[in-house]
């Protein structure tokens, strides 16, 4: 196993350490930080916006760039959370809990530096764990059959919904189903039959995933900024930060070092769970740290605690790297962002899953090794650039929003050169906007859409192998195990609620 890992690492190093790929990691981290820092724009939008740039590149270079954008965006999101209390997305909400109070107390530089060091440590520890666990899982997964894949996809989609939070399970499931429905539009690859095309030639190839990602995230988020008329939105001028203020003392390092170590490991394993992702990673790390802290330190949480800042920052970065495990080893995305990356992999003609480990080792190991490089770039290059990045937050919204809209529309148009796609984007943007206003999440929709085609293919194949019988769901022990895990995840909220009511703590609103 270690020999394989060593040769894989060497493959990864030789792939990543070419000038073009190093430049792409740097560019990805820079662009990710830049986009992620803009309030309202998270990693999904950042990755989706940069996908058109990768179409001219080879798969490894493209994926290395997108991975850089992903963790750059997480890092950038923390900056806006700390400086102006405007988290770019859910994964950095926990960062704002202590980061913003720390900035208000006059230590914005220190808060940003701690966030950078925590992100670096969380990301690096997580990449080491990824390097160990990914090949093991990938080698186990080579024995998977269509039935197992189908069951795994159901598990992934269910898990995404199960982590949706209180009262959100059914809504997330419904969005998964809607995503699966959208995936059926176009020509059925097996039978050649047209489905839901309404005679339109443009719909014969189905709905373009990049278009859907841009419409449901980038366009919708830009319009949300206009719609909500946030009071802080017209004057996002953070205080100027000097280089000296970025200093962290030895005592402070000593205080946060155990927090970083704990949160890195917790974050990674949470990230590995399909559907959990960086948001859960950051909140769980924050919660764990608050529970472990002595009472006097616990009282500081929410008021500018250094441990309270280091924990979620480490947790979300570690979980981001962890979410690459199901993506690279099983071809099942663990989060909305990795779902977009899966779409990019498919567009490159690479079949994600365990075979990628043997068929495209340069992509597999290239992504992993580029993460080391990306973490170093984020720390060494982005940290000194923070004072300049912060100025970006002062760009007026009346310039920023049209530019986001323009880049989103252009991103799709310059790939397809079809003006119909622009109109379809607007249609999907309006539908997504309506669904968001009705409190329905968008990430599960994207996940369902990307997995839809693969799911149908695997189900069809499994049925053919098992003579049109659904017995494949329980005949193989592995498939049965995965299905039982799915059922457990699906019914856990109901079981918990039943147990609570039995203990006399019934809450009528916690049903699902």
């Amino acid at each position, binding site marked *: 196993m270690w020999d394989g890992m060593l040769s894989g690492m060497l493959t990864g190093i030789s792939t990543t350490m070419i000038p073009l790929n190093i430049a792409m990691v740097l560019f990805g981290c820079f662009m990710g930080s830049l986009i992620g820092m803009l309030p309202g724009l998270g990693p999904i939008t950042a990755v989706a916006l940069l996908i058109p740039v990768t179409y001219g590149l080879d798969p490894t270079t493209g994926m290395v760039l997108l991975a850089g954008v992903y963790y750059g965006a997480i890092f950038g999101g923390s900056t806006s959370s700390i400086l102006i209390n405007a988290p770019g997305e859910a994964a950095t909400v926990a960062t704002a809990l202590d980061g913003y109070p720390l900035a208000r107390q006059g230590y914005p530089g220190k808060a940003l530096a701690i966030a950078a060091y925590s992100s670096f440590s969380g990301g690096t520890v997580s990449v080491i764990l990824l390097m160990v666990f990914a090949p093991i899982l990938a080698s186990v997964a080579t024995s998977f059959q269509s039935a197992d894949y189908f069951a795994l996809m159901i598990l992934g989609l269910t898990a995404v919904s199960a982590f949706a*939070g*209180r*009262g*959100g399970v*059914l*809504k997330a*499931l*419904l969005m998964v*189903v*809607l995503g*699966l*429905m959208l995936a*059926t539009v176009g020509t059925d690859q097996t*039978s050649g*039959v*047209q*489905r*839901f095309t309404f005679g339109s030639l443009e719909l014969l190839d189905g709905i373009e995933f990049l278009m859907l990602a841009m419409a449901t995230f980038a*366009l919708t988020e830009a*319009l949300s900024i*206009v*719609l*909500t*008329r946030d009071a802080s939105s017209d004057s996002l001028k953070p205080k100027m930060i000097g280089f000296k203020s970025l200093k962290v003392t030895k005592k402070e390092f000593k205080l946060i070092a155990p927090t970083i170590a704990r949160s890195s490991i917790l974050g990674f394993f949470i990230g590995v769970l399909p559907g959990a992702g960086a948001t859960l990673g950051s909140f769980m790390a924050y919660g764990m740290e608050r529970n472990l802290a002595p009472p006097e330190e616990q009282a500081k949480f929410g008021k500018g605690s250094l441990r309270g800042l280091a924990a979620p920052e480490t947790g979300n970065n570690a979980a981001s790297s962890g979410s690459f495990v199901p993506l690279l080893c099983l071809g099942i995305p663990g989060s909305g962002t990795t779902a977009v990356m899966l779409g990019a992999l498919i567009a490159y003609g690479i079949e994600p899953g365990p075979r990628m480990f043997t068929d495209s080792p340069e992509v597999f190991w290239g992504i992993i090794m580029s993460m080391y490089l990306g973490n170093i770039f984020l720390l060494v290059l982005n940290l000194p650039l923070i004072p300049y990045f912060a100025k970006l937050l002062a760009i*007026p*919204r*009346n*310039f920023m*929003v*049209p*530019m986001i*809209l*323009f880049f989103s*529309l*252009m991103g799709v*148009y*310059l790939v397809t*050169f079809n*003006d119909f796609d*622009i*109109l379809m*984007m*607007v249609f999907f*943007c309006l539908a997504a906007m*309506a*669904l968001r*206003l*009705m*409190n*329905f999440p968008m990430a599960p929709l994207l996940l369902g859409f990307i997995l839809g085609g693969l799911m*149908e293919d695997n*189900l*069809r194949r499994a*049925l053919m192998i098992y003579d*049109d019988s659904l017995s494949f769901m329980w005949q193989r022990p592995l498939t049965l195990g995965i299905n039982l895990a799915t059922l457990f995840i699906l019914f856990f909220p109901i079981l918990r609620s039943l147990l609570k009511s039995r203990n006399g703590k019934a809450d*009528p*609103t*916690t*049903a*699902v």
Partner: protein
Amino acid sequence: MAREKVGALIMLLFSIAYGLLATRIPLSFMAQHEVFTSRTMPYALSVLGALIALLILILPTADPEGKSTLKEKTHGMEWRKAIYLVLLMIGYGLIMVWLGFIISSILFLIIGFYILGERRIKAMLLASIPLVVLLWFAMSTLLGVYIAPGEVFYMLGVL
């Protein structure tokens, strides 16, 4: 009505319509005797979608965020600017073929800035023209992507 119930009702109707449309998916004679056809997945999804939407409608709203009505949620929103921007995007899609990438993009950005309240002409021109020209140059010259000029230039005999 709680806003998530409104969403569930819409999704219920959508799932039913989707299921009905699925019955129109053409099947070959051979396919009609198969267990898994092009209609199977859409049928399953239609039933599943309708079932989940019904559950959301029937069960009490657990998510505190979803309890507010649409009216409460959308109160005070900047609808006018958002609608103008949507119309601008549609217009952009329609004029792209006629005016070409550069002119339509510059117009899109300038009108977008104007809708959001910008009135400094110099700032609007400086923020739009260099950006679009740079993007066009990068795509057409550096990456070798052919971006067709607008139809209007052919009609006027300029090209």
